[in-house]
């Protein structure tokens, strides 16, 4: 009894069964009126020019931080990616061993979420625009480095060897043989990371690092829902515009999409790609000026108080099994919700054409809406805890996965679905059998990757309390317990690395049959 692929895709949605049992007791019913006000405010956002001007300013700051952090991560990622590529080391020195070492070292910055980076840097160098930029650039850079080195080492080396045999110096040979083949993959991934950077910059704002996120949190806390929605709609417009531009460029340059991990893009107009990248440089300088980013200020460190004489007994006495268990439970719930709900919702709305557009909008809102804010909103009606946090985190990731699924469903061959519909099976079953069959494996493979992202991300909903490592980490941070903080970050990183390994294995297994 082996479930066939379309059925596998629906299995994660079974998480709804325990949720349906566990959720009702959590409803305290205090704030339904507030939720109603919040929902109504969606159609009556504040149009007050003063409010809009302030929100636009915040949006500018957020977008600027995202752009700079992203550009920094690209530069960092290119350098570190080359440093952790076996092919590069082998060509330059004859041995690929250092690459392996650097690759392992880079796992650490990658495993720590940008929020933790942001909060740590905030303690070290004080509040300044560069903190958010650096918080994005560091982990993103390590991520770009990994993807880049994977791409590099997967390229065939025949060209490279031919150039070397003809006497070309190693750096020139590397650039000529691998550069052009690498560009489409880098741009495709880079574009995706820019979208992530915008979301991260908003999230960092929620934790006080400035920009629109800070405005959103303040308006939510003071229950100014009309102003909150003005900010959300603005952010939505910017995010959708950015996604549209990126997907337009992807199509124009024929670089591969994010979902089809196995297929390699051809890539066209490489000169245009390079020019676009070059044009970003002066833009970044201008934005940096505008934001008042001062790299020199990053050098003034405040020393961490009391790290030497840490209370390691108290640190050891933390309820570690419960913290780790809570984090894993949160991750599992949120990942199953996100992975399972996307195909389920698509099936539900299949017979109604316009409902798909509604779903698209809902998912866009989920993507841009920082999870800690949805968690705060949920607290109006739910008790704090793992489930509340999982709902918030799941909704956010549903936005990411849903968009991916919808886009790939729309770009795959419609023949099988059409044939089924033509034989009289309803639109839902035609979608399930005809399209989901082919999509299930790549989708679940992506879901496995996403689960690892969710594990890393689980810290951001720590503020609703009792969610495991995340909430403990925020607590230790606010009580300046550096020893605990260090231990928590280490455990978090370890978990994420194990998770990364597991999700890699799952992904390879799912994609093996392709």
């Amino acid at each position, binding site marked *: 009894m082996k479930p066939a692929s379309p059925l596998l895709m629906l299995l994660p949605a079974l998480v709804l069964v325990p949720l349906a049992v566990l959720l009702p007791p959590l409803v305290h019913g205090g704030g339904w009126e507030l939720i109603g006000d919040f929902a109504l405010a969606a159609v009556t956002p504040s149009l007050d020019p003063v409010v809009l001007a302030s929100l636009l300013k915040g949006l500018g700051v957020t977008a600027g931080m995202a752009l700079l952090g992203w550009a920094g991560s690209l530069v960092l990622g290119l350098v570190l990616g080359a440093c952790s590529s076996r092919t590069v080391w082998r060509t330059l020195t004859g041995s690929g061993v250092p690459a392996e070492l650097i690759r392992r070292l880079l796992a650490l910055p990658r495993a720590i979420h940008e929020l933790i980076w942001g909060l740590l840097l905030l303690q070290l160098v004080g509040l300044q625009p560069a903190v958010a930029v650096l918080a994005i650039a560091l982990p993103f850079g390590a991520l770009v480095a990994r993807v880049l080195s994977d791409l590099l080492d997967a390229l065939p080396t025949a060209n490279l060897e031919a150039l070397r045999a003809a006497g070309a110096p190693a750096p020139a040979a590397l650039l000529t043989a691998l550069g052009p083949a690498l560009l489409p993959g880098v741009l495709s991934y880079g574009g995706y990371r820019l979208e992530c950077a915008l979301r991260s910059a908003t999230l960092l704002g929620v934790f006080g690092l400035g920009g629109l996120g800070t405005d959103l949190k303040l308006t939510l806390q003071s229950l100014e829902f009309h102003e909150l929605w003005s900010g959300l709609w603005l952010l939505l417009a910017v995010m959708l515009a950015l996604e549209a531009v990126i997907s337009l460029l992807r199509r124009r340059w024929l670089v591969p999409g994010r979902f089809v991990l196995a297929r390699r893009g051809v890539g066209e107009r490489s000169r245009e790609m390079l020019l676009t990248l070059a044009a970003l440089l002066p833009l970044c300088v201008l934005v940096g000026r505008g934001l008042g980013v001062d790299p020199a200020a990053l050098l003034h460190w405040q020393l961490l108080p009391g790290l030497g004489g840490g209370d390691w007994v108290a640190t050891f006495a933390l309820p570690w099994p419960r913290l780790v268990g809570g984090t894993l439970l949160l991750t599992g719930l949120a990942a199953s919700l996100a992975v399972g709900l996307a195909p389920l919702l698509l099936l539900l709305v299949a017979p109604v054409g316009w409902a798909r557009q509604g779903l698209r909008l809902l998912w866009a809102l989920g993507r841009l809406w920082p999870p800690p804010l949805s968690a705060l909103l949920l607290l109006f009606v739910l008790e704090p805890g793992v489930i509340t946090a999982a709902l918030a985190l799941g909704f956010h990731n549903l936005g990411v996965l849903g968009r991916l699924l919808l886009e790939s469903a729309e770009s795959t061959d419609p023949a099988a679905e059409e044939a089924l519909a033509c*034989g009289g099976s309803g639109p839902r079953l035609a979608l399930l059998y005809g399209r989901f069959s082919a999509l299930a494996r790549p989708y679940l493979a992506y879901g496995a990757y996403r689960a690892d992202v969710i594990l890393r991300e689980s810290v951001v909903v720590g503020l609703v309390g009792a969610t495991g490592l995340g909430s403990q980490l925020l607590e230790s941070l606010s009580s300046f317990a550096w020893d605990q903080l260090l231990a928590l970050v280490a455990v978090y990183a370890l978990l994420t690395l194990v998770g990364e390994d597991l999700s890699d294995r799952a992904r390879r297994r799912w994609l093996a049959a392709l």
Partner: protein
Amino acid sequence: MAAGPATAVLALRGIRVSGRDRPRLEDVDLSLAPGERVALLGASGAGKSTLLAVANGLLSPAAGTVLWEGQPPARSRRGRRRQQARIGTLWQDLRLIEELTVQQNLNAARLARWGWPRALLNLLLPLDTEACAAALRAMDLDPALLEQPVTALSGGQRQRVAMARLLRQEPTLLLADEPLASLDPRLAAELLALLLAQAVAPRALLLSLHRPDLLDGFDRAVGLKDGRVLFDGPAARVNAALLADLYGGTPPGVTA
């Protein structure tokens, strides 16, 4: 509607389908009686595929009426699905679901009649094994193939599975768009014979063909040229002159 014993399985009247610069079909009349086996002939671009798309409901004509077993296209979604369930199409690209087993593919033809529980169960357990095995046997296939994924099949086997799926749907109208195009001559003749054997009353078969040498088992032939019906008569009366007129030169497939 008078539902006498001779109600046409498919009746097209005055069908017109617009195209970019000229109509893809113009004033097409065609009627299929139960048990009738009709071959659709014509050069590429003559409108054979368009006509089949109108016949299976994929395409709504700009003008004219379509009647399936005497009924116009149903208005309600449910009624329409019931109608579609009685129209079986053998697609040129087969349209098997590559990720599923042979049995699951055969059962996919029952989705129109099944509810959700069985549709989901089919993805987990082998359902209706007896009926599926019978469909395979009718196509000269070994029922042991049922558990195989369709990706493991040879080209000829895939063709037969697609035909078995058609049987499993139990349609009254069988439509096929050049199903033999990519097969070697012997296999083509063999599969065509199997398909023709299934087209007995109350079923009727409409099959587009680009090899006039395979006309033997058909009752009638309909020739399309530039979107219009050029001739419609007994298959035995198709001769070289008619074909030359139809294809505007030497008939294809004679040497193929």
